[in-house]
């Protein structure tokens, strides 16, 4: 039973999150820089180029990499402070085994002991319960080589069908939508197309906080005269300047987009020539929205009808346009439909395969694109092949030298793996780069399920809240502690370079998996001497697939500042913009418009739970926070979750900014400070999700899944809001002095003014909106 050996508080006290605030040796250390390593930021799908300064095998700082074309030196705060994780005091340096009698709850063991035990438990559980009773969860912050290796490991070393990844919480709705429309799961345009668009439509994407560099592309479009439309339940920093703001009710995206399509059809703002020649399904898609008048959509979405018409006119009459969308559309039980509804607007107006024109998903996670292409997800084989495609199976078993049977089949998705654990069907789990206790919806259920595991092994660099449950913890490597490639949100494959070795007895992730494969008797499938050999095999495995890397080499990728896939043969320049030839990878070769009928969210508000909850991110934190909740300056910027609430709703409950409120759903309850802001709909509250335990927004969220993509509905559920009392000292003050000896710096209001001098003007923390 995988129960944490100590209480959560005790484990946090021992393993963190603690805060690292200063570079190795402190600020005054004037280390001689040994290396300047050109690589990429690990903290989002934009993968900004960055130069890491290395002294004595520690990353001690960064320098902007002006020549890397995507970001030209720009970084968000996560990229700036990312170097503080390398020598962090919370780093796991030795393999651990759970031991409730040990003072730290875990005892250090040798690698041999740890790996042998993992291998033994895998085989025992499978012998007793069948091959699929052992599952593997992985993540899209891993390099593509790691993701490829883990997919292969799941199938050939463990022999399970149940391998899935945390991109299931991120990119799968977009993937399904684009596969249905185009047969390719990639943003069709390079970002350099954004400034060439006459209209930029941002739908459900908090660009400023989740893809900050994309801001500069949108502003350049504005400099060129582009109009801007933004659809979001909150006035995000990008929305602030929009020509038209569509402040929709959470979960009504397809009604809004469908209504815009309705107007396009009605006013005949349709590119008939393009549609006739290259699109199928236009009539059906148009018929599906025949009743979606702006008046109707206004009632459903809460957006004034005139604004819907205005948005449709701007979109419909422009010469070019890009629609950028992210999890705001996709984290719904209608996630795939919402994506199709966005694509439909582009296809109806012929906006694909041209400069400045296309629908583009804004991929979130570090390698959110690359680590969803090469077989680490449940329904997939490398090269973005489908696991149920006999040809794909034949090709991959040939490349791997295995039998068709050994490839196994389609398994459960991430959330379903947790459910299967909960009902006792899956009894063993190996997890890497995934913190489901924080990131999956309904965290109480997730925790209960993990406790039922007979055996749980985790590979991680920090002891995440999920790893609290582990029987065995294998200390792994950060992105900068190994080599490989990642694929950015543009579809550009870029090179990650090693800045430093893993600390202590931690090992590179690839070495851990290859070693374990050997102990599982599958060594012949994993003969790699280094990561490059994995990449070279990946190239071959991807050959002929949708995501074809065959023509790339590590050298070319570096020399050319990245290569856009597909790149099917050596010397091929790569493909920055897809579909310039209007040939789509659908069976008919045409792009497909999918009819979308609006479906309400799985849970709707009622008299008991009368308020919508939507969740999301803040700019200073990354995903479940395993890394960024340990970086002092990032924690300081936004130390704890705040509940955004409109003055009108706040007034009803007597809530003022800074008050502590209780937010409850059918699944859980949390208390947190409120910030009263008129930048959110009055019927909706927002909570960012990066925190664990009693600060986890996912205590509240609904685990209902999209029927196709199996993405959970993070963006909509029903809650009740109550005032608990005035604000107190709820701000995270865990040892701020971890490294520096600095006194805790609470002088700055969370999320308001940073940059104060540490030690200056200490005082009670005030949340934003309280007027400083």
């Amino acid at each position, binding site marked *: 039973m995988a129960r944490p050996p100590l209480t959560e508080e005790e484990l946090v006290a021992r393993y963190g999150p603690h805060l690292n605030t200063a570079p190795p040796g402190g600020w005054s250390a004037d280390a001689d820089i040994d290396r300047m390593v050109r690589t990429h930021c690990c903290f989002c799908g934009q993968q900004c180029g960055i130069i890491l300064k290395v002294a004595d095998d520690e990353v001690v700082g960064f320098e902007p990499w002006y020549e890397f074309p995507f970001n030209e030196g720009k970084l*968000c705060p996560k990229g700036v402070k990312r170097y503080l994780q390398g020598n962090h005091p919370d780093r796991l340096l030795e393999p651990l085994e759970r031991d409730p009698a040990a003072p730290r709850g875990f005892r250090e063991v040798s690698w041999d002991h740890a790996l042998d035990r993992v291998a033994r438990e895998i085989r025992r559980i499978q012998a007793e319960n069948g091959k699929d009773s052992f599952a593997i969860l992985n993540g899209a912050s891993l390099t593509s080589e790691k993701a490829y290796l883990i997919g292969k490991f799941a199938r050939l070393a463990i022999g399970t069908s149940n391998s899935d990844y945390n991109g299931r919480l991120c990119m799968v709705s977009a993937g399904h939508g684009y596969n249905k429309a185009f047969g390719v799961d990639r943003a069709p345009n390079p970002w350099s197309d954004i400034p060439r668009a006459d209209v930029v439509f941002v739908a459900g994407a908090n660009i400023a906080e989740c893809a900050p560099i994309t801001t*500069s592309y949108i502003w350049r479009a504005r400099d060129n005269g582009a109009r801007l439309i933004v659809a979001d339940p909150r006035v995000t920093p990008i929305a602030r300047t929009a020509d038209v703001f569509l402040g929709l009710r959470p979960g009504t995206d397809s009604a809004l987009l469908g209504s815009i399509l309705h107007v396009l059809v009605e006013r005949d703002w349709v590119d008939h020539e393009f549609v006739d020649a290259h699109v199928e399904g236009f009539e059906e898609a148009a018929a599906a929205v*025949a009743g979606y008048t702006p008046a109707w959509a206004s009632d459903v979405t809460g957006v004034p*009808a005139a604004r819907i018409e205005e948005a449709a006119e701007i979109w419909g009459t422009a010469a070019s346009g890009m629609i950028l969308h992210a999890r705001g559309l996709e984290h719904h039980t209608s996630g795939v439909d919402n994506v199709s509804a966005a694509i439909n607007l582009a296809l109806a107006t012929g906006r694909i395969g041209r400069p400045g024109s296309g629908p583009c998903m804004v991929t979130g996670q570090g390698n959110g694109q690359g680590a969803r292409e090469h077989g680490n997800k449940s329904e997939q084989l490398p090269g973005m092949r489908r696991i149920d495609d006999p040809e794909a199976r034949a090709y991959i078993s040939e490349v791997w030298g295995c039998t068709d049977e050994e490839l196994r089949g389609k398994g459960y998705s991430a959330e379903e793996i947790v459910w299967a654990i909960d009902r006792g069907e899956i009894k063993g789990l190996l997890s890497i780069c995934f913190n489901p206790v924080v990131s999956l919806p309904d965290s109480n259920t997730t925790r209960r399920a993990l406790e039922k595991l007979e055996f749980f092994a985790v590979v991680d660099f920090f002891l995440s809240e999920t790893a609290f449950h582990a029987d065995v913890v294998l200390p792994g490597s950060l992105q900068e502690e190994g080599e490989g490639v990642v694929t950015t949100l543009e579809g550009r494959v870029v090179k990650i370079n090693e800045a430093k070795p893993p600390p202590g007895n931690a090992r590179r992730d690839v070495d851990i998996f290859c070693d374990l494969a050997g102990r599982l008797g599958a060594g012949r499938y994993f003969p790699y001497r280094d990561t490059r050999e994995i990449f070279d095999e990946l190239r071959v495995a991807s050959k002929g697939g949708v995501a074809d890397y065959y023509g790339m080499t590590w050298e070319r990728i570096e020399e050319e500042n990245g290569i856009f896939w597909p790149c099917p043969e050596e010397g091929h320049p790569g493909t920055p913009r897809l579909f310039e030839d209007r040939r789509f990878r659908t069976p008919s070769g045409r792009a497909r418009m999918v009819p979308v009928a609006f479906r*309400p969210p799985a849970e709707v508000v009622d008299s008991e739970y009368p308020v919508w909850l939507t969740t999301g991110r803040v700019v200073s934190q990354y995903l479940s926070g395993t890394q960024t909740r340990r970086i002092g300056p990032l924690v300081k910027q936004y130390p704890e979750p705040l509940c955004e609430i409109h003055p009108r709703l706040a007034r009803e409950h007597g809530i003022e900014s800074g008050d502590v409120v209780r937010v409850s759903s059918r699944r859980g309850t949390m208390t947190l400070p409120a910030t009263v802001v008129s930048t959110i709909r009055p019927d909706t509250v927002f909570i960012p999700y990066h925190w664990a335990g009693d600060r986890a927004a996912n205590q509240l969220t609904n685990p*209902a899944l999209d029927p196709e993509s199996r993405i959970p509905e993070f963006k909509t559920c029903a809650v009740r809001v109550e005032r608990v009392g005035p604000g107190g000292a709820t701000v995270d003050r865990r040892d701020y002095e971890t490294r520096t000896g600095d006194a805790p710096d609470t002088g700055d209001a969370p999320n308001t003014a*940073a940059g104060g001098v540490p030690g*200056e003007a200490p005082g009670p923390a005030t949340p*934003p909106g309280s007027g400083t």
Partner: protein
Amino acid sequence: MPTLTEYVPDAPGEMGDRVFVVDQSRCIGCQACVQACEECGTHRGHSMMQLDFIDRGATVQTVPLICMHCADPTCAEVCPADAIKQNEDGIVQSSLKPRCIACWNCVNACPFGIPKKMFELDQMMKCDMCYDRSSVGLAPMCASVCPSQALWFGTPQEFDATRTGVLEDTMVFGGQYVRTKVQVVVHEPGPVAVAPGRRYTHWTDDPFGLDEGPAEADVSRDWPLAPALSAAQQRQAGPGAWPVAHGAGAGAGAGGVGGSAAGDAGDSRTEGARP
């Protein structure tokens, strides 16, 4: 541009005609500038940047505050110890340690609220426009990283070729005219009155259309709202369209597709059921 280690500075004091530009309307409040300032070689570990919300309750608009490097710096004028110097590039520097008496006159006098009290060093420090970088042709740290390029560094020609907005270098504080080396982007030519005046797009006063009638996002209204569709529109909407046929105010979730009891809703659409 070359990176710092590759750049061989010829003569220090060579900022050339490069200008530092602040365009607040582009700022997204990410604080990359604040965080990166701390990494600057001349004051490592201390950020000289400030990032403020104007009024978070009303707007997400934020304002990055860097030293404006005034032509006639008030901070230096009020310094009794003559500790604040301006160099040949017009950069107003941190106080000279041997002279600074930590009286904080400059801190109080600066119209932009820039100088920092460094208690532990017993002196005033401030933004020096990353002179280690800007003097060798590199952008200061904040303008290098700024994702929105609200902070921008380059030549006037580059500005004209790539950006819009009118550059202005004069601010009026009541009766005091302050001319600055740093340029701010404004929408109309003429000195910037620093006090009031907010610029609205047509929707900013009422982002959610609360005053626009039927679509009012009234918190007290039950979901689902009954859309007023004609029978013909209902037919057109086709199967699976959101239902319309129950009365307004009916117990939420009581009728229609997707109105199944909210607690277990979703199961009907998610094969592979929950345990």
